[in-house]
């Protein structure tokens, strides 16, 4: 299971924490999709809904963090999130979230396999590839030395002419 930390995307940090929210366009689109066609949402309600979602993220991460600490792990994992959902009374979300977890793990596995396959498809073992790399380095080195040697002899010729 991957434990590496996601790098932070570029952007302002520090004081802007309190204003951190979910993208307005995304929220608008999602709310539109989820609302029945015969009802509308007021702008203020939409904003409140967005704030509620952010609050939900805080709640869920805090609880997942607690679960993580209780298990004496250092990294909040997907399992911690799922346990947190159940602890918070959102157990009906668990099946779908678990399904996403499975899909994601599958995709990661497939990506790793594709990487290995590419290596295998080249028809060479890792050993052979390393050897190939060494040979290429040796060739490049030899070429460079040749060029240096060439320029040296050139300057010698110029000196003798003076």
């Amino acid at each position, binding site marked *: 299971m991957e434990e590496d930390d996601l790098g932070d995307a570029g952007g302002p940090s520090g004081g802007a924490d309190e204003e951190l929210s979910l993208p307005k366009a995304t929220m608008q689109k999602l709310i539109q999709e989820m*609302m029945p066609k015969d009802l509308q949402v007021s702008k203020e309600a939409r904003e409140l809904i967005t704030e509620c979602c952010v609050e939900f993220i805080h709640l869920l991460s805090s609880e997942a963090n607690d679960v993580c600490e209780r298990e004496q792990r250092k990294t*909040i994992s997907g399992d911690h999130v799922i346990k947190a959902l159940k602890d918070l*009374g959102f157990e009906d979300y668990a099946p779908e979230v678990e399904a996403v977890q499975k899909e994601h793990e599958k995709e990661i596995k497939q990506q790793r396999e594709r990487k290995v396959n590419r290596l295998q498809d080249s028809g060479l073992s890792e050993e052979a590839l390393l050897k190939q790399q060494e040979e290429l380095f040796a060739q490049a080195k030899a070429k460079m030395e040749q060029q240096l040697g060439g320029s040296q002899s050139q300057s010698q010729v110029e000196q003798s002419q003076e």
Partner: protein
Amino acid sequence: MPKAAKKTTFKTRFPAARIKKIMRVDDEVGKVAATTPILISKAVELFLQSLIDEACKEARDSRSKKVTISHIKDVVQGKDSFDFLRDKINSLPQTDVHEGDVSPVKNKKKEREQ
């Protein structure tokens, strides 16, 4: 805004990097596995749907065509698992309760009321 290089092509409705930033507001949150923001994104989606469904119920019960803050307030007060939103709801200024009426858009309904 530059996006973090994505290691996976897994599509979530909410940007994983943003979710992680929001998580990080809590000082206690430390390292986060790559799959975590993805699962949280899904959970938020489900929460959003749930909130909207309940709010629509309230709107229909009050024979309103528009979901307003007042309806959301009712939802939060009526559902145990939405406890965590009580403080936010209670701190709303009273005037917003009727904000559905102060829409600048003139429509037939308003004219009828006048």
